[in-house]
């Protein structure tokens, strides 16, 4: 039983990723522009974390009569009130729009709503976000995302060369923008945990890219005269089984969060699932082919003839694969 695994990937595939690069770029350009347009036109379905307002989850003693409740709450003068059943028939989610008149007005509206519902009701949760906090959270979230992109680019630049840094940042940016586009398209609530997911996607999608870049760099050193297109294809194919396996384990974890993690983690797991898929796609079809256009040092011309390199260093050379290239 332990002689070998149940499933063994033996063959190294031979997929022409570079041949598909125009298709990949076109698709990505389409998705990115589409996302930006969607975001500009459609906006995001901000949860109260960002938009401010009130969400109360209440449990009534008898099955809730939404109609009667709506009439009652509409008469309070707290603006637009949305009621929605969820879970059991006794549970109601009450959304009240953000109150005009600053932070203090939100709390007064909560008190009004709770008084109107009467004493028999238990409260599963109450969330009130004033306009001050909402604006701050949007700002902090935007800053965090931009900083994450820059920090990752700088790290990759330090560990590799600037060309790799640019490729990594663009592909991560692509992943982030299309995730936002997806949320704009599906109208799924965009809240703080979604934002956490986007930052995690930035960290995760770069993971694949780094692994592939690592291999590209190693192959570049080993086969100094190899044609760059072949070189990238070879690196991608060699790391493909790892890419697929890692994506699968992470996807398994996220899928179980999606199915069993409850409604609070719904947006989070949707964002993560998309991020895992698009992050992998962008590593294969954007980050790596992009190196073809912004060539790192050590790659000369398409055929690489200009590189008067000595014979490829044999496998197991003492030189660490992580060391920076010594090229001036």
């Amino acid at each position, binding site marked *: *039983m332990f*002689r*070998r*695994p*149940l*499933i063994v990937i033996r063959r190294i595939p031979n997929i022409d990723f570079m041949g598909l690069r125009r298709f990949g770029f076109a698709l990505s350009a389409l998705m990115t522009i589409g996302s930006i347009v969607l975001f500009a036109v459609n906006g995001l379905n901000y949860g109260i974390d960002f938009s401010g307002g009130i969400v109360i989850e209440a449990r009534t003693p008898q099955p809730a009569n939404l109609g009667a409740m709506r009439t009652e709450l509409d008469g309070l003068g707290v603006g637009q009130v949305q009621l929605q059943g969820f879970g059991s028939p006794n549970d109601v989610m009450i959304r009240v729009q953000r109150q005009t008149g*600053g*932070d203090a007005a939100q709390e007064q509206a*909560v*008190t009004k709503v*709770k008084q109107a519902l009467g004493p028999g009701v*238990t*409260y*599963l*949760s109450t*969330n*009130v976000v*004033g306009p001050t*906090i909402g604006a701050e959270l949007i700002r902090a979230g935007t*800053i965090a995302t931009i*900083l*994450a992109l820059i*920090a*990752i680019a700088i*790290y990759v630049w330090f*560990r590799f060369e600037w060309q790799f840094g640019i490729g990594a940042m663009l592909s991560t940016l692509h992943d982030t923008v299309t995730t936002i586009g997806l949320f704009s398209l599906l109208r799924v609530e965009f809240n*703080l*945990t979604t*934002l*956490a997911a986007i*930052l*995690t996607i930035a*960290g*995760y999608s*770069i*993971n694949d890219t*780094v*692994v592939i870049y*690592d291999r590209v760099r190693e192959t570049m050193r080993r086969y100094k005269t190899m044609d760059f297109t072949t070189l990238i294809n070879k690196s991608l194919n060699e790391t493909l089984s*790892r890419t697929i*396996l*890692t994506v699968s*384990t992470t996807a*398994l*974890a996220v*899928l*179980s*969060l999606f*199915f*069993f*993690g*409850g409604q*609070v*983690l719904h947006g*989070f*797991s949707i964002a*993560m699932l998309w991020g895992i898929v698009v992050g992998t796609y962008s590593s294969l079809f954007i980050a790596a082919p992009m190196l073809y256009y912004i060539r790192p040092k050590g790659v000369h011309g398409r055929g690489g003839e200009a590189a008067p390199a000595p014979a490829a260093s044999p*496998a*197991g050379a003492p030189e*660490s694969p992580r060391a920076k290239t010594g090229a001036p």
Partner: protein
Amino acid sequence: MLYFQTWKVALILAVCALGVVFTLPNVFSSQTVASWPGFLPKHQVSLGLDLRGGSYLLLEVDMASVERDRLSNLVDELRTTLVARRIGYTHLGVSGDHAEVKLLDSSKYGEVHDAILKIDPNLQIASQSDGTITVKPTTDAVQNRERQTVDQSIEIVRRRIDETGTREATIQREGDRRILVELPGISNPEHVKALLGKTARLTFQMVEANASVEDALHGHIPPGDELLPASESRPGLPSNYVVHRRILVSGDMLTDAQPTFQENEPVVSFKFDSVGARRFGEATKVNVGKLFAIVLDNKVISAPVIREPILGGQGVIEGNFTVQSANDLALLLRAGALPAPLTVIEERTVGPELGADSIREGTTASIVGIALVVVFMFVFYGLFGLFADVALFFNLCIMMAALTLLDATLTLPGIAGIALTMGMAVDANVLIYERIREEVRAGRSLISSLQAGFERAFGTILDSHVTTLVAGALMFWLGSGPVKGFAVTLSLGVLTSLFSAILVTRLLIVTWLRRFKPKVIPI
């Protein structure tokens, strides 16, 4: 590479063992854990309010009103000073963030300048070309006042919450002028919010005998007086009062306040300290037969007649109270007045049912996720997959132990972070194993393939983990509450997975090599 020194083996085993031991209390209920013998660790990871149920309130101290009050006091002081020195002026008043006054005789500027600094040396004085003098507090003074005001507010908030008997409340400063209040187990914080929403400044002021409320309502308020509304309209009683601005005694001189009954009506009895008692005694002695107003937050609670001098420093406040409102007022008076109004700018309350649901769902999702990963690794890597699974188990334990020992707070997104890192943790194993496979394909010997696999994969593993740590650090820095919880578990998980995937897996493989002396690698 494939040889472990004994002390290293001991260290790895010790870390794993400690991980298991410190995780154990989290698996059992707190009652079970409490009955364990003394030498076992009993500390459990603390659950966030979204899991245990409770209320999170973010309060903002209204510094603008403090500065406004300061400026209007300053204007009063300026007026007194200028009048005392017989210096003519016009246009005295508050404008934006400063007070201003125009001197009739601009040659008096020097004298006025010195006089103002005598009022308060922390004032910035500037004179404009048209002879207007502007006065405002220095930035330092404003910052000092802000710090003191927030410190005092925190103290008062703490006292008020303690008085309500709420257990385990957390009250701390957040940023410059915010106070974070966490109330575990409180699922309807309306009462607490009502208590924190009152400044509770209590004053005793004489009611003006020679002015009518009607005149005052039309703007004819005698100098030195002010018009205050009644706290609630009651039949037969006026809805407004004209009272002296001068405060006879104020609430900060109270030593005690208790709810009690007088003629079957709830009232609040109070006791002054010695200074307060003397002042109250003197004031009541010279004003027998007149009315004095009991004022709370600029509203008149009641205005009784002084029948006789009150010399003992004790009295009762009457005013259409219910048992609850008498209790609340007594509590507020005992705890003291807030130096500035507080506004709730964010509230997050989770009831115990929802918290329990979240724990159940989060745990189920994590267990299913981890189980799937474990099976997956076995299917694709066989024996080595099992090694990775064992490492994953220790990874989970060390992570839980670290959370417990660091006293980090576990939130629902935090649980998601655990499930996610378990999926990501085996990435290091995948990288190593794939590398080993490649080396085997390249025709290397068994030992050298293993060695190269671990060595070569290490750099890649490090690079790919650092980027996730960067994202985690940013989330921790800029995120709030639940997101912070996610950042903590994500970052911790990445760190512990480095240990388990590299060291634990390697130790398992080395031990297997020694014991079974295999000829081929089973992957």
